[in-house]
């Protein structure tokens, strides 16, 4: 039975959650429902739409380009996630010391995050130039030759992965740094009294207490990674010959270049379902490995 406490709690929930939830419904969920409706239409944006039921989904089922885009997106995630997490953790540990000038280094590591993809892709295309780039020059010294990087089918996606990990490592660093800074000193002192060395401190104190932040990084990176777009658009344009196409690139091309907004909406719905499933799975797993001090 809902007593006074029940109503009071409801009031509190409404007060804290209300404004946020209303805006969410109005400006995020609403348009998402609009997208779902559009996925059942044929629409080029400039003429009235035409209802075609599940026609877009049926076509999507046989779309080889979309399947390739999905494969490339998963490939991207498998390469990008470990790189960016380990790199970000390393940098965060590096700058979580009270040495002089550490604020400057934190700012420098954050620079790639704020630099636009236009500039970053120019740099990486230059570094990864098969003929004259620094990377291939170094590889040749150790006897590895012939990697075409962004000019070849096989290596276009790895080029995007490397450039993306490099750019985002500062982003992960900032998040993990915040997590590191929230670990109470008293725990380190206690570990020290027990005779722990730096490696033990990392394994027994730092990492466990960092798991909420690591979980956050994993979920966010996965959700964002599935929607990778800017770097592919700017670096390879999905090429050469469509070998580095990803899902959101297909969606944007279909919406604004090919005039197939309905089909693109169907692609978005499918992408949404996939991300939702993966994230739900991650959320269930969190009980296994994430340690919350409040529980």
């Amino acid at each position, binding site marked *: 039975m809902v007593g006074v406490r029940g109503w009071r709690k409801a009031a509190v929930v409404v007060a804290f959650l209300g404004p946020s939830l209303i805006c969410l419904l109005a400006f995020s969920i609403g348009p998402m429902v609009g997208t779902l409706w559009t996925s059942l239409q044929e629409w080029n944006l*400039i003429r009235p739409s035409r209802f075609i039921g599940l026609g877009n989904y049926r076509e999507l089922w046989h779309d080889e380009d979309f399947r390739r885009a999905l494969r490339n997106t998963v490939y991207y995630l498998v390469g990008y996630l470990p790189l960016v997490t380990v790199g970000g953790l390393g940098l965060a540990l590096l700058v979580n010391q009270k040495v002089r000038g550490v604020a400057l280094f934190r700012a420098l590591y954050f620079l790639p995050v704020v630099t636009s993809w236009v500039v970053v892709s120019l740099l990486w*295309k230059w570094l990864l130039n*098969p003929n*004259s780039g620094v990377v291939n020059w170094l590889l040749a010294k150790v006897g590895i030759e012939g990697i075409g990087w962004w000019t*070849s*089918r096989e290596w276009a996606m790895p080029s995007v992965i490397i450039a993306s990990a490099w750019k985002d490592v500062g982003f992960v660093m900032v998040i993990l740094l915040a997590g590191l800074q929230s670990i109470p000193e008293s725990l380190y002192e206690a570990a020290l009294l027990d005779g722990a060395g730096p490696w033990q401190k990392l394994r027994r104190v730092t990492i466990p207490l960092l798991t909420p932040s690591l979980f956050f990084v994993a979920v966010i990176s996965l959700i964002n990674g599935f929607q990778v777009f800017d770097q592919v658009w700017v*670096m390879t344009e999905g*090429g050469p010959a469509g070998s580095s196409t990803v899902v959101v690139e297909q969606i944007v091309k279909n919406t604004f*270049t090919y005039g197939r907004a309905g089909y693109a909406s169907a692609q978005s719905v499918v992408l949404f379902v996939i991300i939702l499933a993966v994230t739900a799975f991650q959320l269930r797993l969190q009980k296994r490995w994430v340690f919350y001090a409040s529980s």
Partner: protein
Amino acid sequence: MHTRTRAIAALASTLMTGGAVGASAASASAEDVSISYFTFSAAPDHLEDLDAIVEAFEAENLTITIEVQTAAYDDYFTSLQTQIAGGSAPDTFELNYENFVTYARSGALLDIGEYVADPDRYYALALEGFSDDRVQYGLPMTFSDVVLIYNKDLFDAAGLDYPTADWTWEDEQAAAEALTDAETGVFGDFQPISFFEFYKALQQAGGTFFDEDGQAMFNSAEGLAAAEWLTSKPGTVMPTLADIGGTPDFDTSLFQSGQLAMWHNGIWQFTGLNESGVNYDIVVEPGSVQSANAVFMNGAVVSEATDHPAEAAAWISFLAGSETTVDTRLASSWELPAVNDDAAFASYLEITPPENRQAVFDALDNIALPPVIERQQEMQDAVTQALESIVADGTDPQEALDNAVDEVNGLI
């Protein structure tokens, strides 16, 4: 600024007619109409030129104000389509020839046939280019064509004769090979691997893109010849993708720094070339079986949903065909107005370099218009990707073309 012009004009006319100032002012504000115009060709270099045209129009039409909206070409269509989808289309906007058909057939454009006072003012082919099914939906504003731009110093140094209008592909190939020098980093030729070069090369080889029934037939022997002509260049006389290295506008930089002998590009490059000081001239592109030259056109259209059709049409008529527009465009090299006025172009021909500006107009004798269907962009991408896979993957050209033909026929 506009208000002041209007006020001065109002005052001047009042003094001349001796009428009451109050009466003129009252009528000016009662029926004020605002017409929006969205364009991609004004930013970044010609905003002032457009302002001059707007001012001249507003001075002649005191009750109309023009609100200019600009965006870069790459972002233009995203914004335009969203505006139209949301029901807030601009009253008038700019479209290029390839995209025009889609908008016309989707019912987004107003039939302006009744408002075109002087059809002979415009170049006949251009006017037809902005009509669909004999309905006039827009007015041609500008045209530009693609020519062969060559570096005179490099030809002199190699002791070769300059290209002439009679050259064929073989002549171009021979010169390109003679002029390419890997050691000094000089390339003999540059022709982009894209749909836009392909349909033109196809016509130069004597082929056609669509047959009489509207089915794609560019995988013919002529199509093969064109594809091989284009794809044989990278790595021999032309930089490869890796050479380009992702540097944007690489071919422009290459030519402007004097390291490219021949360049297939458009007349819009002249201003930049003149500023760079490179010693160049132009000639009509070499053909094979016949001559064919790519011509591009931009036009102004009126939205179907506009509240002020008469005023909107008056604006685009002024924008496309008035003396002010023609003079402004020619004076600042802001594309060529698509008007039937040889006398006006006399001043254009006198600006040098390049010496051989006449080639710009000679190219119009043999035009290759882009093939256009409703699903235009998908067709363009299919053809470009087929050509790219020949270069990047070594796909058999005939196979690549056959696949592209199947894809394009699926789009019609």
